[in-house]
């Protein structure tokens, strides 16, 4: 969610039970603008909080002019001092996939991952490697996974310019109430995967300037998003069931929207059983 509208946005998202204490809110109000100044970001998003066993990580993302470019991520343990996280690489993601369980809350905690290579018995004792992964790496990989999988924006809010970079659409007035209830009005803010697979007939209806991302309609498994109208239609809240804790809000017919993650940072692999 935008750092500038943090207070109002938190009120709208809090129906899930998670929020920020007044102390943290005030601290963010002071430290996020400083982040923007120091790192020369165009805008700063408060991404959310990952709850560890001994502490919590507060995450912020900084964006430049191009909204589709890889974002810089920072974490903090107390909402006052922020540390930059390394950008996520494929190798990091692969390593972090193997880790399970809660985050510890200590960024220098090291996970021991024993990799046993399937080789001849003779070679086994020599080839067994103990890969050590720091919690920071796991944090980066988890944030990247969550953003790719369930980071969403309303349709029409971002527009792609002919030169490539993606900008905010200043003409976006918000979705109407009927549109807001449909999953097809929301897009994943990530590289589109399904777009090429659409039939020509469907592609003809698309507007290439705004429809350049995947919509939520074809997410697998079906039903992995809950759409609820809160306060009798004043706010549309989407919650992801794949990553429990990700909440997206939008006030129809206004420009207010955003998503935030309050959770443990674990994927809900039991989703197919639970639906």
């Amino acid at each position, binding site marked *: 969610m935008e750092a500038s509208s943090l207070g109002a946005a938190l009120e709208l998202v809090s*129906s899930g039970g998670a*929020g920020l204490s007044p102390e943290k809110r005030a601290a963010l109000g002071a430290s996020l603008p400083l982040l923007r100044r120091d790192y020369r970001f165009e805008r700063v998003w408060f991404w959310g909080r990952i709850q560890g066993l001994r502490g919590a990580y507060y995450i912020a993302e900084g964006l430049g002019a191009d909204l589709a470019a890889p974002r810089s991520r920072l974490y903090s343990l107390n909402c006052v001092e922020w540390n930059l996280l390394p950008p996520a690489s494929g190798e990091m993601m692969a390593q972090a996939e193997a880790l399970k369980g809660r985050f510890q809350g200590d960024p220098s905690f090291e996970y021991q991952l024993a990799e046993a290579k399937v080789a001849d018995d003779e070679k086994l004792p020599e080839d067994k490697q103990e890969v050590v992964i720091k919690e920071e790496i796991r944090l980066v990989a988890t944030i990247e996974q969550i953003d790719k999988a369930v980071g969403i924006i309303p349709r029409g809010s971002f527009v792609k310019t002919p030169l490539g970079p993606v900008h905010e659409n200043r*003409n976006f007035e918000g979705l109407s109430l009927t549109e807001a209830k449909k999953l097809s009005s929301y897009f994943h803010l990530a590289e589109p995967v399904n777009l090429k697979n659409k039939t020509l007939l469907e592609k003809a209806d698309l507007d290439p300037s705004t429809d350049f991302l995947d919509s939520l309609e074809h997410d697998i498994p079906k039903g992995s998003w*809950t759409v609820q109208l809160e306060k*009798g239609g004043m706010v549309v809240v989407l919650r992801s069931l794949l990553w429990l804790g990700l909440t997206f809000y939008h006030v129809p017919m206004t420009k207010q929207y955003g998503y935030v993650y309050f959770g*443990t940072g674990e994927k809900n692999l039991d989703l197919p059983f*639970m639906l």
Partner: protein
Amino acid sequence: EPGHGPYQPHEPGYGLYETGYSPKDKQIPEPNTQMLAVQNAKAYLQKSSTASGLNLYDHLANMLTKILDEQPRNVVDIMENISKDVKWSQFQKKMDTLRDEHEILPTFEVAEKRKALFLKAHGEGDEELEDEIADTPLPNVMETAFYFEQAGIGLSKDETYHIFLALKQLISVQPIQTCRFWGKILGLEMNYIIAEVQYHDRAEDEEAEEEEDNEEGGKGMDEEKEGDEDEEKEDDDAPPQSTYKPPPLIPKEDTGTGTNKYIYFVCNEPGKPWVKLPSVTPAQIICARKIKKFFTGRLDAPVVSFPPFPGNEANYLRAQIARISAGTQICPIGFYQFGEEEGDEEEEGIGGRDTYEENPDFQPLSVVEMVDSLSMWVHHTQHILKQGRCVWLNPFQKSEEEEEGEEEEKPEEPEEIQQEIGPPLLTPISEDEGIQNVPAWTAQFSTNLVPQYAVAIIQSNRWPGAYTFASGRRFDNIYLGWGHKYSPENHTPSLPPPVQSEYPSGPEITETNDPSVEEERALQAAQEEALAAAEEEEEEEEEDEDDEEEDD
């Protein structure tokens, strides 16, 4: 007249200021024709499009008016969009003369319901006001919400206040002795807001329960008797009766004890009517431990699962509430104590003590102590045994009624069932097992910056979403989440039981392999040998007999 410009006719710049004499000039140099040209252009611009009925002149005029009115930044970049918007606004014109009905958005309906919460029920005199203030079971939801907010837990203030008023409405309708806001469980279509209450007169409720039980028991007895009669008639021709005896049904606990100590009311949103949840049975708890399903938000929705859940979503919700309460309701040590009168151990029953009372001499511990050591907190809800109850019951203890019915049938020998014992009431939470490497509870301060006014916060890791706070004499529990237990491993659904065998297998009906050719030959050869040996013996005997006869 020759030009008015600064150049003299002999200079090269001459003629530039003069229309008609400049080499670049293409127009007919007469003012009249110039005006004519302008008019032609304007007429062209005003030509209506055959497709849309608009004309470019009006459209450009509208667009420029809009731009000049609004004066947006960097207008040239978004000009096409403005043009599109202006065109689009043309279509908004109402062509018909009928007036639109005011749209009744669902927004307004919900707002109506919420407004109703704010209105007082009847006209009130001063007496009633005093009564209200004196002894009300209404909990101070806003106060607990304030403490939880210090830790960043809780719903928005608006929603909390609505829940507060909804609880007030509940109390005015039902005869309630104590009431507490238990928490909120999220669902797919709608969410649940849950209140935990205890009734004034339990007699009222028990009567209703007894009626239900009698009906069910009566039906059961009738069915058994019918079954016996049928058996007697058809004993001769009947196919073999199944020897399957379903495991004994474990009766649910009485209202006011064990898992059914509190009654729960739920509603989807504050303002909607409160619905009472039915009591929970041990079978439901056992099944709820094996399945993991999201709540849809509708109490009558079926729960499709394996093993099949005995009930609908209302029962599943109640079972999860019971499990969460048993696992996560905690209080500071010393706040509650066991009753002063220690009765005989027989009276207390097998499960140990199950009642407690507030300790009048409670000395609140400092927040630092509460956070540092988990043994400062104790459970004040009874642990649910594997059986699904808080107090263990031997299911094979036959009551008198059952014994009469079972005289004819051969009772199977009851297996020796171990009495299940759970941790007694008021055990400290430091005794709770973690899951793998994850400790069961996490304790922290609400703030590190202002330790004088910090609040101790405990979060459960086994049931993510369960929180407790303590500050001085105040403490409370709340649950805000999806209603499921934490498991680091994936949920593995239980496998179907093995297929039951139709008949007992014995040697006479067990199939064996046909003997192979070699085996048959070998057998035949052996048999022939035996036969030959037997014949020789017979021959010898005959010879002996013959010899004997001849001798005679």
